[in-house]
């Protein structure tokens, strides 16, 4: 090799190369970390508790589908308060809906019905719907797994 103590140009270049590349590596390590520590805009994923609706969103005898842990849930406002269930029909996993005319939870796929306690009352569904707990905190209707 040609470089050596007598060739300051080569030495200088090596020093520059080392410094630059180490600097670039530091950047490539620190940049992701800096981005990581700054929290994202999106709110943290809802978990076992979810704000299913706001007070006033639902009239009495009205239902609403909300997302709960990656699956649909159904929130119903009855005459005396709120109830929430899993919205996945226990027959063939269609999404159920609230029928104000029947005052029942109803599955469109095969005419399965559940009463307002989530019990399967007619049609093919073999099991009741899973019930969730509903709490009203301030303006939020909060559904949680009991």
């Amino acid at each position, binding site marked *: 090799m040609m470089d050596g103590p007598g060739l300051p140009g080569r*030495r200088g270049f090596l020093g520059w190369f*080392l410094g630059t*590349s180490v600097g670039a*590596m530091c950047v490539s390590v620190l940049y992701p970390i800096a981005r990581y520590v700054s929290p994202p805009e999106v709110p943290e994923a809802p978990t076992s508790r979810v704000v299913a609706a706001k007070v006033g969103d639902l009239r009495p005898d009205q239902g609403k589908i909300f997302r709960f842990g*990656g699956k649909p849930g159904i929130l119903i406002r009855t005459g005396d308060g709120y109830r929430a269930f899993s919205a996945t029909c226990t027959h063939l996993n269609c*999404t159920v809906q609230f029928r104000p005319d029947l005052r029942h939870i109803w599955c*469109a796929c095969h005419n399965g019905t559940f009463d307002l306690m989530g019990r399967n009352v007619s049609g093919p569904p073999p099991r009741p719907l899973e019930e969730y707990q509903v709490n009203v905190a301030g303006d939020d209707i909060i559904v949680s797994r009991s």
Partner: protein
Amino acid sequence: MTSFPRKAAVLALTCWAAAAAGTAGLAAEPPSLRKGPLPMETSCVVCHRELDGAALEPVTRAADDVHFQKGLACHDCHGGDPEAGMDGDPSAAHDEARGWKGKPSRLQVPELCGRCHADPAFMKRFDPQERTDQLAEYRTSGHGRRNAAGDAQAAVCVDCHGVHGVRPVTDPRSGVHPSRVAQTCARCHSDASLMAPYGLPTRQHEQYQASVHARALYEGGDTSAPTCNDCHGSHGAVPPGVSSVANVCGSCHTREATLFREIEARKGMDLEACIQCLICHSNHEVKPPTPEMLGVGEGSTCTGCHAEGDAGWAGAATMAEGLGRLRRRLAEASEQLDAAEHAGMEVGPDRFALQTASDQLVEARVLVHSFDIERFSKAAAEGIAAADEGVAAAGRAFRELRSRRNGLALSLVVIAAVMVSLILTIRRIERR
């Protein structure tokens, strides 16, 4: 010998009336369950136990028989004297003077069973929910009408429920349990020689086996899935008339039936006269609906009535196009999300969003039965929008993946540069 359910014994002591009656001919009233030996201690059992073949069979199968379990004995159907003949002289028990009837003829069977099963007062003692209209229904059925006309070939109670060893319908081993009904009906209805005199087809069972209903019943184990009697009725077995097909299907497929009625009302015409469920979906061989059934292409069920140029033809084409687009887009979205997941991206939340598209696909397929382009298109468009969102989410995932790989390439170059410069530095230092 006395291993009968306690219930039966109690029944024997409390309910059995003392009066002796109904031993001659086929009395209309139920057997008056007289005091006497328990069912398995009659002379019938004592003698027939020693016999073999067809004469032994009633004894061996008695333990499985719901009638025996409830306290009925041989003579309640066959007559005769259950206490006589113990001395080894069977003729005493089989004495017509003592009410012996022998084997009831096929023509007599319905009335024989009806003695009890059509008597509400009698049946409610065993089960307050028990129906007692079977005989009346049977008389309205094809089987019952032929039986009444003296056709001994027509099915009677024992052909489906069995004789000696009759199990309740809730017992999966019973021939009338939902899982076995089709087989039971097929014993006669698939037999060409039996059906020939009536000019009835024999392929129903074969067709049913291929249907979506049979699949749900046998493969899905869903005993609520329809089998023969759910459409034809159990005891009043007749083919549903043209006017009631939509009602029969509509008892489960309510939304489709409701939509059907709505359009009927709107158009002010009797649609059922020209369209019925089975024109498109067939009757026994109800296959899962395929995309080809809708539209104007090969395999379409619409083109049977609609001709090119009429509104129905155009509507069918529009619906088929919308449904096809939704289906393709949904498949594309889930395929791409799968691919993104396979590449290590987390797409759980996007999959949930895609649920809307599948729900709308179900909805749109139902709305086909409204024959209302506007309603259908609205549902389909919502589904397509949701599926588009899924495709876009997968696209974002892949862009993210590409940018990750680009970032990786860049950082690998940097790291390699550091390694090279370190190695050069080592060499320079060590040359000194």
